[in-house]
């Protein structure tokens, strides 16, 4: 099938206004939250499961790749159409279909914004636990694809712990339900296989989400440190003391500068690091926990500990943290974020290594991360327009990842592999591991049509895109 007839068929399926082919329309879909860009040929915005299935069948007949996209807030290039083809934006499928508070579930479409789930049930005393920093914008579909985490992952686990079932469109356009409304169904956990699959096995068109009961009491503290080392030691001590905060976040001096420049919330600009600690539970336990955390901070030399006095102050403290990535734009035109994980006991050591890498490469690195579970987010600041800069950034990033793996950790905690980390997946998995994963993918997507060139090590990597221009598909920009 030629392109013109494919586009015609897509228009019949979803309607003229939801098939974008003009450059001035599709160019904005060449990028997500990451630095990679590939121009899609066509973007479609289906409004129902049936339309998604129709689009998948049409793309299959035309033999072109399919790339699902949620809100495009991902940080690993997962929604970038690496090999062109059809981008399916699920933004229009944004209805909350059902809320059942007795069963504590929500049935939603994939384009629903993460935060809107919690908003819909907050008044009844419930919430949806996964809370990526982008939760005001990111979609449930994107959360499922990336098995997203967030600050409160520490206490509640990642997305896969909160998805009970999914309706998916398979490669041949058939629609199936995996999992369901009740937890732990018998047989293979195929719902679990879809969570974190980064759009490579099919397209989620509905999801059954688990809702959690809001806690009686929340305490939020901001501990201020003059030395990064003291802050990381404090993290080790807090978790070592048997306290499991709902969230335990760290921001360094450069991140604080970005937040306070972009949209100030009142973090101390002269601190070397701050810890944002949140405790949830019954009142007695959060009060006791807050006291212990304060003691530990003070013992480790914190300059001060601010306890949020009301909801407004608590939200302000979080607003800075949640906006930290976007705020980096206030410091540099581009940033390249790593998502490495280390055992938390190794935090002090890895932070020293990152500081050393930053100095050696003459690159500023802003750190904002989930300290409680050792999930780092070193953001390398740069200007992509300066020749040679990106090469340096990629090399520095790779050193950080190698250091994480050497410390017994991993190359990604929650952002996914996408386009951007796949060159490094070999650091973590053996060929046999990768082969086992590839087999799972083949079961669902034998033609490799869904989000090709993602996750698995294939010739095109972020680094190679720069070094081997011959391999760059037409219209690729980086």
């Amino acid at each position, binding site marked *: 099938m030629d392109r013109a007839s494919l586009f015609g068929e897509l228009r019949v399926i979803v309607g003229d206004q939801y098939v*974008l082919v*003009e*450059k*001035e*329309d599709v*160019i*904005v*879909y060449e*990028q*997500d*939250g990451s630095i990679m860009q590939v121009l899609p040929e066509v973007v479609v*915005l289906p409004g129902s499961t049936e339309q998604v299935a129709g689009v998948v069948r049409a793309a299959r007949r035309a033999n072109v790749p399919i790339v699902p996209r949620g*809100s*495009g*807030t991902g940080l690993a290039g997962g929604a970038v159409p690496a090999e062109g083809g059809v981008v399916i*934006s699920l*933004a*229009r499928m*944004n209805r909350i279909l059902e809320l059942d508070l007795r069963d504590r579930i929500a049935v939603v479409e994939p*384009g629903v*914004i993460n935060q809107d789930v919690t908003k819909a049930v907050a008044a009844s005393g419930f919430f949806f636990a996964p809370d990526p920093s*982008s939760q*005001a*914008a*990111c979609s449930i579909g994107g959360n499922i694809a990336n098995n997203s985490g967030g600050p409160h992952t520490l206490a509640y686990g990642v997305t896969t712990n909160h998805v009970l079932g999914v309706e998916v469109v398979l490669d041949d356009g058939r629609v199936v339900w995996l999992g369901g409304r009740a937890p732990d169904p018998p047989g293979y956990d195929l719902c679990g296989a879809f969570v974190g699959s980064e759009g490579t096995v099919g397209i989620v068109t509905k999801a059954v989400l688990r809702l959690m009961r809001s806690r009686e009491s929340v305490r939020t503290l901001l501990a201020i440190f003059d030395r990064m080392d003291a802050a990381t030691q404090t993290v080790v001590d807090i978790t070592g003391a048997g306290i499991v905060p709902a969230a335990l976040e760290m921001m360094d001096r450069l991140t604080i500068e*970005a*937040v306070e*420049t*972009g*949209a100030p919330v009142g973090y101390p600009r002269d601190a070397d690091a701050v810890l944002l600690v949140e405790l949830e539970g019954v009142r007695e336990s959060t009060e006791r926990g807050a006291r212990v955390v304060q003691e530990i901070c003070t013992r480790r030399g914190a300059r001060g500990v601010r306890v949020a006095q009301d909801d407004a102050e608590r939200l302000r403290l979080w607003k800075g943290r*949640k*906006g*930290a*990535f*976007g*705020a*980096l*734009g*206030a410091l540099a*035109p*581009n*940033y390249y974020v790593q998502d490495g994980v280390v055992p938390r006991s190794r935090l002090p050591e890895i932070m020293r290594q990152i500081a050393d890498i930053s100095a050696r490469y003459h690159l500023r690195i802003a750190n904002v991360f989930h300290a409680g579970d050792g999930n780092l987010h070193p953001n390398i600041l740069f200007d992509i327009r300066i020749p040679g800069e990106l090469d340096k950034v990629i090399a520095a990033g790779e050193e950080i990842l190698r250091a994480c793996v050497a410390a017994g950790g991993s190359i990604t905690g929650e952002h996914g592999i996408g386009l951007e980390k796949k060159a490094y997946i070999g650091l973590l998995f053996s060929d046999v591991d990768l082969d086992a994963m590839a087999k799972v993918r083949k079961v669902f997507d034998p033609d490799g049509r869904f989000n090709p060139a993602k996750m698995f090590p294939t010739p095109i990597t972020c680094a190679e895109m720069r070094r081997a221009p011959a391999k760059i598909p037409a219209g690729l920009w980086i």
Partner: protein
Amino acid sequence: MTQEARETILPSGDRATAGPRDRVVLNVPELDQCVHCGLCLNHCPTYRVTHLEPESPRGRIHLVRAVAEGRIEPLDPARGTPNERFAEHIYLCLMCRACETACPSGVQFGRIAEAAREVLGPPGSPLARRLARLAFTQVFPFPRRLRWLASALRLYQRSGLQRVIRLMLPRRLREMEALLPTVPSRFFAPEADPRPAIGPRRASVALLSGCVMSTLFGEVNNATVRVLRRNGCDVVVPRGQVCCGALNVHNGETTAARRMARRNIDVFLDAGVDAVIVNAAGCGAAMKEYGHLLRDDPDYAERAARFAALVKDAGEFLAGLGLVPPSGRIEMTVTYQDPCHLAHGQKVRAQPRQLLAAIPGLHLVEMEGADRCCGSAGIYNITHPEMSKELLTEKMAAVGRTGAEAVVAPNPGCMLQLRFGAQRYGPALPVFHLMDLLDRAYEAGSDSQQSAVRG
């Protein structure tokens, strides 16, 4: 100030059509600050309606960046006419700047969109563009022509002609015609003499009479003067002032806009006041940004920045000064609509609410999405009636859910739009300017004390 600046308010003859030109160079430093995180998406009214990335702030920034990089031509290279697909996306934006409030990096989206519109020129068909340019260069800079036009409209409305014409218009035009506000019998005009403070003098201020405010909302201007005087302000409404130029800047006409800005700067700096008070949010935002508008003007950059620092929204100013508490009661439940260019453009949110809270008997109920655009957006309700209607119906539903008896919105565009909404979609309730209510509260208080201050 140069003599020339006073004289050259006349447009210089730039036209809607332009011949072949070199590739447009767009140098917008604000672009570098966007790292496309997407946190703006759901704060954008047009994205919320369409769910299309090109109709989002992030998408529009990406488009402008593509222009800056030479990947998209904003104008037809041969004819110099706008690239229509690009222009559609840039002009579907309401310029509400809600994205600026949401942006963690502090990207000033308004400046990016204004730069793109400056390249494109006014929106719409060639005829509409020509008409817009005519209005922006030949009408708005001239208060007398504006009043003349408003008088003509008044005559049209009162002579019975309106009723006849309405029957003859096709549906689309009839709906546009219905947006025409009723022109009151008296306009508000600048005066040579300042009006003195009542009670101890606390400040001396100048008031922008405004183009829409002085023709359609003269009574609100009078109320503003009375409220300021009651708060110890000498108030002058300097002669020689012109429209602020906001509509020009938002619609891609900057030549006349800069001329108008220079004129206002001269007139208001000459007045030697402590503050320049604006009771229209859109005008206030534009005038606070004169420094940016004239940044490349060696003669005016410094004066513009000095002037901009004097500009204060009326509510912002009174809250900062410390409001003399009104003693009269207004027993009413109201809801407050944040004008976009007040909340997002000037970051003024708390002050108007504080003033409302100071009125005895008045009860404020917040509506959902109070700082979301009502769809008025300058001339947007005329250029984009469908999107505007979509936003207005959503707004009126939010108003209705509060159970309020009235809406307060300190900006003429919002007032007109909400009045239209109240009449067309309900709930049928009055729409007040904040200064209206403060004035009434003072009036009610002074009635009981027998000390009228009209004049």
